């Protein structure tokens, strides 16, 4: 996986929240990381957090427990509940979620776990790394698989359609659980076969 880096320069409030809350303990090499849709919004210069969470991913259960303990002791949150913390910044509420059941050994492993290419962004609070395909699909608002899910969830299609993403052919039957692997592979996997230099 070839990763590209990006250093945010604008005054995106999502980036400001990450700087305020998480930068001290994030680490690009070993984690924890912030990754997914909230980071995509920074790269695409979208200042509205919308319905996205700021998801924090950890390298181990021990780090995750330490992080939750660290957040639990802080009195800066509007609310706290089971690893989900609500933080108010410039009159906007941000939902910060410590992901509890999945742990990653590296940035690459974390990014490769995402189902859609447009979500493959990760940050340590200093820089953002992503695949080139993540950038292309985010800018085109194009929904393509990074990997096909074993258990398709129609609500994933609902969520991304609501965000204005349009799937490439094959994604719709795949996410709606229409059982035809050959058809799905033929129509959607070719996107994964594109080189990173695409």
């Amino acid at each position, binding site marked *: 996986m070839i990763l590209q880096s990006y250093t945010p320069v604008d005054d995106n409030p999502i980036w400001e929240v990450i700087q305020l809350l998480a930068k001290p303990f994030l680490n690009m090499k070993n984690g924890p990381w912030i990754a997914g849709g909230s980071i995509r919004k920074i790269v695409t210069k979208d200042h509205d957090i919308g*319905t996205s969470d700021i998801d924090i991913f950890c390298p181990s259960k021990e780090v995750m427990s330490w992080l939750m303990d660290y957040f639990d002791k802080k009195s800066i949150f509007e609310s706290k509940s089971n690893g989900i913390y609500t933080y108010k910044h410039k009159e906007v509420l941000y939902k910060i979620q410590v992901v509890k059941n999945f742990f990653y050994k590296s940035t690459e492993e974390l990014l490769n776990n995402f189902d859609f290419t447009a979500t493959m962004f990760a940050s340590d609070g200093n820089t953002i790394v992503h695949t080139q395909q993540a950038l292309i699909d985010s800018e085109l*608002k194009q929904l393509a698989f990074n990997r096909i899910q074993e258990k*398709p*969830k*129609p*609500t994933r*299609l*609902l*969520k991304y*359609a*609501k965000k*204005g*993403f*349009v*799937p490439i*052919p*094959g994604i*719709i*039957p795949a*996410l*709606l*659980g*229409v*059982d*035809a692997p050959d*058809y799905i592979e033929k*129509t959607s996997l070719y996107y994964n076969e594109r080189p990173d230099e695409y």
Partner: protein
Amino acid sequence: MIINELIEEKLLQTTSLVSIMSPLQPLVETYEKNGGKETIVFMSGLPIPFSIFLTFFTAAYITFVNSSDHPLKKEDSDMLFAIWKSVELNNDILDMVNLSQRDKKPEYVISSIIGKMFSAYATSENSNEQFKEMVYRLDQDYNTSIISPITL
């Protein structure tokens, strides 16, 4: 939005009128202009941008087909409900809706049209297979449309 100016003209074309007006077989077309592409679904005379169509279509699919295949968790149900409540249509869509459905709210109109589509497919004894066929047809029509977009 790259096709606003063509919507009214499209609705007046008699050659495609049957497909445009059909609630059971939506017409899917992709338009290309200045390097940008936009896919539009025509249903019952209403032109709907593809992502908005998909929002309603998927919600209807989950409602009609979900059952034992995809049991919804509580958080999924909450999200579905929240999405239904939060669907907002921009002025472009409002303008489009005004072409054909002047008296009703656009979100009601779109959900009603798609609901009729699913209801029609649900009349068969083997509804789930019918629904799957409907999904394939939609995806194949979409695939065809983006392979051969209409250049404006």
